[in-house]
Structure formats: structure tokens, C-alpha cells
């Protein structure tokens, strides 16, 4: 640990000094290609295009012409938002000078990216922000290709989210909703538990005798005390959380018969939301910037890949240290990356990296909670240096204000991401 740290500082200084000379001044416009138009990629593309004032040619590659945010998709499940309110287009990015291509990147070489449609995009710097993919075999009996239409993951927002909601609404009276919760690390640490709250809220109104079963491989989860207090207050007796001690960690599913097998015992359920173990979006592995963990290690002071000096990895796909995989984190990291990339390509000023994150969760109507932290780079990782969390027993006015604050945050961050 110590040796690595010292080694890094030494080479870091030397490399930075070399890079201080703008790398491609004198050439035609420097080219940045960004893969993935979510919280990391769209923010990076917009900030680079805006702040370089035409000096950098920015291309954003995103499969969907209309992006559906995974953040706040639980509120759609709970009936607090329309699906369309989660959707955002790229017109403002295009107006800001970003070239937007609706395609998938399938391969990345040293200085070019190949798209599914065959187009080859040359780049000087590449930004990968492809979110998550699922680890094959993470939940025995389930694979994304074969079973996501029967037991949805709904952990990439879009048709999967709508499917899960339709399934919950179609549950028979007194039926069982099961969630197979993911192992660490995964996108949005409080997300599965906010989802449980939102499903409980729906069922309480139309199907109050239904049960929710949460099968969890983790001994603890984010905001646990707050969720457990809220579940007791709003949904007493409806939610059963089963941790690894009681078999929640080694669950098999049988999509054909709609069963989950817990400690050898098969139980029939009506809806099964399988949230599998996760890895970096596939293009990160194709580009060769992931390691044995399945995630892409990055330098904590810039979000630059530790494996390829011309590639940056943002958001969920990156292995950076203490920041949770969240839209807020990805957006925060994108601003540091945009600054570092402009520094290399145009000699723009580069200031010390600083990162932050806040996650709001809704437990019931007007009962919002939050957790957040400030982060700074150490040579080894992005480290948490301060944090806060809502307290149990807060009064209703504060919880309502926290929920309203989350609505303001959604409006603010989506304006910051999509322009």
C-alpha cells in the first residue's frame, strides 16, 4: 500500500509535468468521444463542449435517442411520477455543439471507437460512461437474455421499469412480491430498499394483504435503520427482509414456475424482481480498461483510467474508491474529468479535484430521507472525508422538506446533465 502510494506520487509528478504542455495544440481540433449519455457521459460532453468554446470537437454516442433516468424510476413505480418525467432528449447538448450519435459502441482501440453500425470514430481522448451490466450466473436459474421478461431486473430504466410496475399492479390479492437484492458493489446502494418502499406503498392502497419478501446476500445495507423504521411505521407486517444468516444470500430462482428457492425450500411468488450482481458496462471491458474485479480502475485525481492514459471512465463503471455508484457521483466525477481533459487538450487550468454525493430516498408520501458525503482524492483512491445521514425519529415537516428537496435536486441535476 505504502509503496504503491509513493510510487504513484513520484510518477504522477513526472507524468503531469510532461502533460502540462498542451498535447495536441497546433493540430486541427482535438477530438473527444464520449460513450454513454447518462449522468456521467452527458455531463462530461456538455461541460467539455461548453467550456472549450469550440476548441474541442465532442461526439456523444448513446444508444437511446430519449434517455430514461434510473434515478427517480422508483418514484414512477410508487405512482409519484409519470414515466415521461424520467425521459430526456439530447437537443440541448446538440445545441451546445456536441455531435450526438444514436448507436452502440462495440469496440475501442488505441485511437478509435467502432460502433455497431460500422462507423469508426477517431479520438484523442475517450470518455467511457456506460453504466452497469449484469454478471452472468450471479443468481442461479436467471439470465438477462432468457428471463428478464419474466423476472425483471428493472435496474436499467426503461421498458423493464414499466414491466415491473405492470406486474405489481396485476398481482392477485394477498400475493407475494419477491426481490432478490444484489451483492456489493452495485448501482445506487439505497435503491433496492427505496423500491421495496414504493412497491409497499402501491400495494397498501390496492392489495393490502400482499407480502413483500426481500432476499439479501448482504448483512447490512444503506440507510437500514431509516428504512426499517419507515417500514414499521407505514407498512407494518408487510415486508419481510431475509439476510444471509437465514438463507437470503444463496437464492436460486425458477422463472418457469415462478419460484424462489431459499435454503432448499421452493416458494411460489407472484412477482420476482431479480437485481443481479453487477460489472462495468461491456464497452469498458472491450476497451481493455477493466481489471479482475469487472470494474475499471481510475486515477482518483482525474478519473483517468489507470490502464490507458487516453481513456477516462466515469460513474458506475469506474473503480475509484469510496464513492457510491450513483447519478450524483457520476455527475460530480464528470466535472473533474471534463476539467482534466480540457487541461490536457487545450492547456486550460486544472484545479484540485473535489467530489460529492447525496442520495435521497422516498419511504412513503412526504417521508424523504437522505445520505451524503464529501470526497477527496488520495493517491490510492477517492476517499470519504465527511458524511451525514438523516436521523431516525425526525419530524414530519423535515421529512417533507427532504422529499421536496429531492424534487428540486432532480430538476437541477437533469438540467446540469442534459442542458
Amino acid at each position, binding site marked *: 500500500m505504502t509503496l504503491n502510494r509513493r510510487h504513484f506520487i513520484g510518477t504522477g509528478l513526472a507524468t503531469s509535468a510532461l502533460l502540462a504542455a498542451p498535447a495536441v495544440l497546433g493540430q486541427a481540433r482535438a477530438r473527444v468521444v464520449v460513450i454513454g449519455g447518462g449522468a456521467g457521459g452527458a455531463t462530461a460532453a456538455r461541460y467539455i463542449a461548453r467550456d472549450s468554446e469550440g476548441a474541442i470537437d465532442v461526439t456523444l454516442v448513446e444508444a437511446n435517442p430519449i434517455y430514461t433516468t434510473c434515478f427517480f424510476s422508483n418514484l414512477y413505480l410508487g405512482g409519484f411520477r409519470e414515466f415521461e418525467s424520467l425521459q430526456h432528449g439530447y437537443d440541448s447538448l446538440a445545441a451546445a455543439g456536441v455531435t450526438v450519435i444514436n448507436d452502440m459502441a462495440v469496440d475501442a482501440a488505441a485511437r478509435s471507437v467502432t460502433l455497431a453500425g460500422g462507423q469508426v470514430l477517431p479520438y484523442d481522448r475517450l470518455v467511457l460512461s456506460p453504466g452497469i451490466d449484469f454478471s452472468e450466473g450471479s443468481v442461479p436459474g436467471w439470465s438477462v437474455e432468457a428471463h428478464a421478461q419474466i423476472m425483471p431486473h428493472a435496474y436499467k430504466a426503461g421498458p423493464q421499469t414499466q414491466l415491473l410496475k405492470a406486474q405489481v399492479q396485476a398481482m392477485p390479492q394477498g400475493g407475494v412480491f419477491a426481490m432478490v437484492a444484489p451483492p456489493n458493489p452495485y448501482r445506487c446502494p439505497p435503491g433496492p430498499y427505496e423500491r421495496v418502499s414504493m412497491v409497499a406503498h402501491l400495494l397498501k392502497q390496492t392489495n393490502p394483504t400482499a407480502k413483500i419478501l426481500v432476499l439479501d446476500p448482504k448483512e447490512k445495507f*444503506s440507510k437500514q435503520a431509516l428504512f426499517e423504521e419507515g417500514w414499521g411505521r407505514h407498512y407494518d407486517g408487510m415486508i419481510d427482509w431475509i439476510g444471509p444468516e437465514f438463507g437470503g444470500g444463496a437464492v436460486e430462482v425458477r422463472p418457469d414456475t415462478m419460484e424462489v428457492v431459499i435454503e432448499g425450500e421452493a416458494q411460489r411468488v407472484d412477482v420476482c424482481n431479480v437485481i443481479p450482481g453487477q460489472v462495468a458496462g461491456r464497452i469498458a471491458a472491450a476497451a481493455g480498461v477493466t481489471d479482475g474485479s469487472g470494474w475499471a480502475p481510475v486515477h482518483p485525481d482525474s478519473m483517468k483510467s489507470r490502464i490507458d492514459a487516453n481513456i477516462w471512465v466515469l460513474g458506475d463503471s469506474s473503480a475509484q474508491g469510496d464513492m457510491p455508484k450513483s447519478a450524483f457521483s457520476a455527475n460530480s466525477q464528470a466535472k473533474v474529468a471534463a476539467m482534466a481533459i480540457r487541461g490536457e487538450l487545450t492547456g486550460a487550468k486544472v484545479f*484540485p479535484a473535489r467530489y460529492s454525493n447525496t442520495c435521497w430516498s422516498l419511504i412513503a408520501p412526504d417521508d424523504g430521507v437522505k445520505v*451524503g458525503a464529501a470526497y477527496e482524492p488520495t493517491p490510492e483512491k477517492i476517499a470519504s472525508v*465527511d458524511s451525514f445521514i438523516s436521523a431516525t425519529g425526525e419530524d414530519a415537516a423535515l421529512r417533507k422538506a427532504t422529499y421536496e428537496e429531492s424534487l428540486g435536486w432532480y430538476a437541477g441535476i437533469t438540467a*446540469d446533465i442534459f442542458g
Partner: protein
Amino acid sequence: MGWRKFLPALAFLSAAGLAPAAAEEIGDATRGATHFQTQCSTCHQIGEGAVDRIGPRLNGIFGRRAGSLAGFPYSRSMARMGSDGLTWTLETLDVYIANPRSLVSGTRMTYPGLPDAQARADLLAFLRDWSDRPQNIPEAEPTARRTDHALDPAILAIRGDPDYGAYLSSECQTCHQRDGSDRGIPSITGWPVEDFVVAMYAYRQKLRPHPVMQMMAGRLSDDEIAALAAYFATLD
């Protein structure tokens, strides 16, 4: 320790567009493991499969309420401190390990204390590795000490720099909208500079209650607040 001496120089370079500064790691966990062996392991276990012995197991100690492990026979003194609210953090553990009786007068831990601050820091870095990771549980205890920007000479050199303010303000704009919308989160556009500055100081001193803003303002130095003010003054 050698690398820390570079920090002022690094920070200065960063202002000119070179390597950025770094937060301070707690200590050297490898050395800490050795300290654990010699100082603690007679009574305590930590790591895979650790159990309570003469002293309680130390997995998950960061963020744990004092005296709260079910089944362990704590001293009455320790149990009382736990119910009074003592929680193990970087700061409280550091004080406790330096001299256990400074925090818990009747503690059953007969350890005399570890006066060497660096050895304690290394030991704490080792202990921290066996508690929750903030990546998975964001509310877990911090893993590093924040940079003390107020003492950083480099920051003085960029006093009131609107470019620096523009960069710092990008953090504000994750929540506060440029168009002045104030639904749920107040608008910060079109504010008189003085009002902005006094508000940031009030959050930094925790005189204003909002936890997100206390955290955000808490790490702004005087000069960073000045840089932000200089930037906001350039907006309409």
C-alpha cells in the same frame, strides 16, 4: 511521511494546471497491522472469522456505538458511555487508544495507551479496513482526513479567481438551477455578493442547519468562498 512534504508544492503546481493535491490518508495500514499484533491481539481479534475474546471483536468498529455488541460483558462504565451516545469514529478511537481512561473512566481495558500519534494513525488505518466501505454504505465513517485548504498557500495565490469559482460552482449546480428555479431547493442566482459570503460562513460554522450545505460549505476555505463570490458576480 515523505510524500506529505510535497503537498504544498503539489497544491501550488495544481493551481498552475499540474498535479492536484490529495486528501490525507489516515495512516499506513501495513504498519498498523504490525502494531495490532504487538499491542492489541492478546485480547482482541479482527478480520475473517474474528470472535470476542478478553476484548470484543473489532470488525465494524467504525461507526459502532460504544458498548453495543450483543453478548459481550462490557464494564458498566463502557455501557454508560454507549448509552450517552459515544460512537467510535476516527477521532474518538484516536483519543481512546491514546489513553483509554480519558474517555471511559472505569474501562476494563487495562491497556496503558499508545502515545505515538503516528503509530495510532497507522493502527486506525488498519482497523478502518475491517469496517463498512462508504462505496457500499455511503453513511459509513470517512476513510481519510480532509485536506485543510485553509492552510494551503496555493489557494491564497488564486484568491478571487473567477475561473476557480466557475469550477467550484459546478458542484452547486448539481442541485441549484441556473435559471433561478427554486422548487424544493432555493435559487442562488442574482444574490448580492455579501449575502452569499455571509451565508456560506454561516453554513461552514454550522450556524445554519442544513446538513448538505454544512458539508459543502464546510470544505470551502475563505479564498474559495471569495472565488465563488467573484464568479457569481460575473453572472447576470
